């Protein structure tokens, strides 16, 4: 009872004072960059889709592989990093009573480091000196500034991560014996993963800087690749965890319900932190230099991440059914109809969750040893991450934008803008059905990823892929319309929507409130266990790859 009163008091206080204006400016800047990256990356994606379908041919001075490198960088690094940090900083400001002045400063420093890093990295891409994809596997060697830019981006992210840690630690000092607010708990987890997950790739990038300058003659390609994927898949799960935070904390409030068991929510978060980083190994299942036994161990490590996701699946539908029944839904599925399908803040994340059912199942299939061999590096994989990242994560981000942007801009979501959002969500869903569906199908037939349009000398097998690739272009056309609507909506809500107060929706825990064990707060312990799990996954292969290394590879520029 006392928690309920203090909650409502806090809500009232927030309503009177609104959002902290300095923190709001920070969040708005992050969001603006994120959605500009969506616009640019989306346009490049459309060009790619059309080239891949054989409908256009990109000129040599702006070719398919340049476009693909920039598309990947803008969407999987810039859009997601800026959105994630902006969203969590807005939430930390909201639930920890404002950012500390020095933390806000750190977030700005991190912001400019990332922007400068991005500019330094993207220039060689535009000059065709870094057509190495965002995975930059050596011995493909980009211009040194490409790697320097990447290093600056990572350092900028670290500054933001440490800012978040400082703010959380200071809150915990003042509020001894209390649980960290659930949203801040999610933020802590995400920033821990961002920091620890990117240590390996930072080491790789520093080595590549020296190598691309010629200071060291050769590089160990397998170690580089392994360090990259220790980061690469963690990043994927960071986006996922960001989306999950909105599913657990925000969506129940929007549908008028309460959130799922606080203790189980925190356990899901802890599990996702502990088990995450070794999951990246499944990107190397058909690599040489590693034994089948090791690969099998990693199938287990990858699959174990699906356990907390299965808990999440249960939690979400539990909340939906409870809320739907409370609103008068009857029968086995009657509660579904009581959910607010016309509210974009619910519709977008709901479709995102539904998309995660086939996306997760596809992920389990392709993470698995010999099944991976069927689809590795085919268009199937591209279809998979357009369903996971491009739909489950991004639609959740879009759904968040319809309350977060008004919240930080002291404006409101109008019914008309809500309708725009619903239409946008439907267009996005149709586009992804076409694009991801045809990519999955043509991948099973053998069409490779990261390859510009080719009939391989009018080979009959390759010609058979063409009809599917046309649907990629059709999907891309829907998606670019979706991008334009979404970017319009974001900037309209930021600068032109009617003034007013929009709350940061955080659902109350379910009643009766059960006590969450205090041990969930032991972050030091979780980090230690996480490091043990990372060591289990990576010490053996890395030591083996270093000790048994062949002579290294010199840099190559093959484009």
């Amino acid at each position, binding site marked *: 009872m006392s928690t309920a009163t203090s909650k409502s008091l806090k809500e009232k206080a927030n309503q009177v004072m609104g959002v902290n204006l300095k923190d709001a400016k920070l969040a708005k800047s992050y969001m603006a960059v994120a959605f500009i990256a969506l616009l640019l990356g989306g346009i490049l994606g459309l060009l790619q889709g059309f080239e891949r379908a054989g409908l256009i041919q990109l000129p040599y001075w702006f070719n398919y592989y340049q476009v693909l490198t920039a598309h990947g960088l803008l969407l999987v690094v810039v859009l997601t990093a800026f959105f994630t940090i902006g969203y969590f900083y807005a939430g930390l400001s909201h639930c920890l009573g404002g950012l500390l002045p020095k933390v806000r400063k750190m977030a700005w420093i991190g912001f400019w480091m990332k922007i400068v890093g991005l500019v330094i990295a993207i220039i060689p891409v535009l000059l065709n000196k870094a057509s190495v994809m965002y995975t930059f596997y050596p011995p493909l060697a980009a211009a040194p500034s490409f790697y320097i830019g990447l290093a600056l981006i990572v350092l900028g992210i670290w500054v933001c991560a440490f800012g978040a840690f400082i703010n959380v630690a200071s809150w915990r000092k003042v509020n001894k014996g209390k649980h960290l607010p659930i949203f801040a708990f999610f933020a802590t987890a995400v920033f821990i993963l961002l920091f620890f997950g990117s240590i390996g790739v930072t080491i790789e990038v520093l080595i590549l800087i020296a190598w691309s300058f010629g200071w060291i003659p050769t590089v160990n390609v397998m170690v580089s690749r392994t360090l990259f994927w220790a980061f690469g898949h963690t990043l994927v799960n960071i986006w996922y965890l960001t989306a999950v935070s909105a599913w657990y904390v925000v969506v129940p409030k929007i549908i008028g319900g309460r959130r799922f068991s606080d203790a189980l929510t925190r356990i899901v978060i802890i599990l996702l932190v502990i088990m995450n980083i070794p999951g990246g190994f499944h990107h190397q299942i058909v690599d040489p230099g590693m034994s089948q036994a090791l690969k099998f161990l990693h199938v287990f490590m990858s699959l174990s991440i699906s356990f907390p996701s299965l808990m999440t699946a249960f939690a979400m539908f539990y909340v939906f059914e409870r809320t739907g029944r409370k609103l008068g839904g009857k029968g086995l599925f009657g509660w579904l109809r009581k959910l607010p399908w016309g509210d974009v803040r619910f519709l977008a994340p709901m479709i995102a969750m539904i998309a995660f059912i086939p996306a997760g199942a596809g992920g389990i299939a392709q993470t698995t040893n010999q099944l991976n061999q069927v689809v590795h590096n085919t268009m199937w994989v591209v279809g998979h991450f357009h369903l996971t990242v491009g739909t489950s994560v991004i639609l959740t981000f879009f759904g968040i934008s319809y309350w977060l942007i008004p919240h930080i801009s002291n404006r409101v979501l109008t019914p008309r803008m809500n309708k725009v959002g619903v239409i946008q969500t439907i267009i996005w869903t149709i586009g992804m059905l076409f694009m991801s569906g045809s990519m999955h199908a043509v991948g099973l037939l053998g069409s490779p990823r990261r390859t510009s349009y080719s009939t391989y000398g009018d080979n009959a097998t390759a010609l058979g892929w063409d009809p599917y690739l046309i649907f990629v272009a059709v999907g891309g056309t829907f998606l670019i319309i979706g991008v334009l609507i979404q970017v319009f909506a974001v900037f309209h809500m930021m600068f032109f929507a009617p003034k007013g107060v929009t709350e940061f929706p955080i659902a109350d825990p379910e009643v009766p409130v059960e006590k969450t064990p205090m041990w969930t707060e032991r972050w030091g312990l979780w980090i230690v266990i996480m490091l043990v799990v990372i060591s289990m996954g990576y010490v053996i292969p890395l030591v083996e790859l270093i000790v048994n290394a*062949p002579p290294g590879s010199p840099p190559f520029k093959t484009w």
Partner: protein
Amino acid sequence: MKFSKHEEIWLTISVGMLVLFMVIVGYQTFALGMGPPSNKETLDPQKVDQTAPFDNPGVFEVGPNEYEVVMVLQVFSFTPNNIEIPKGATVHFTMTSKDVVHGFQVAGTNLNAMVMPGYIQKITQKFDKPGEYLVLCNEYCGAGHQMMSTTITVK
């Protein structure tokens, strides 16, 4: 902190499925020999032409209707190319790369392996169905990546 009855059932069934899945995958990998290509031999990537067996790439008969293909991948081609083998042949591919990372994929089969400079990768396939198979590089390797292909003809 307690799981509800329904959540327990849900998690038990799904974990059971995952365990069963792991068991089948493990059985196929270790008992049936269907595991992914994982050869661990190495060589100097700058001396491929001087290192056996890659100093003499080609198709070699190693047994009754059994062949070894010693193959070098480089931007943007496979050596040897346009391979012909009889129907029903078991083919062992032994591959390495002379330059960047390549992928070896044969559409319509489960042949799919990363070919890294400095490593010798091995993968085996039995070709039961006659026809022309498309071999392609499935790891981006440079400006001509989309041209890097050849064929295996099974007669």
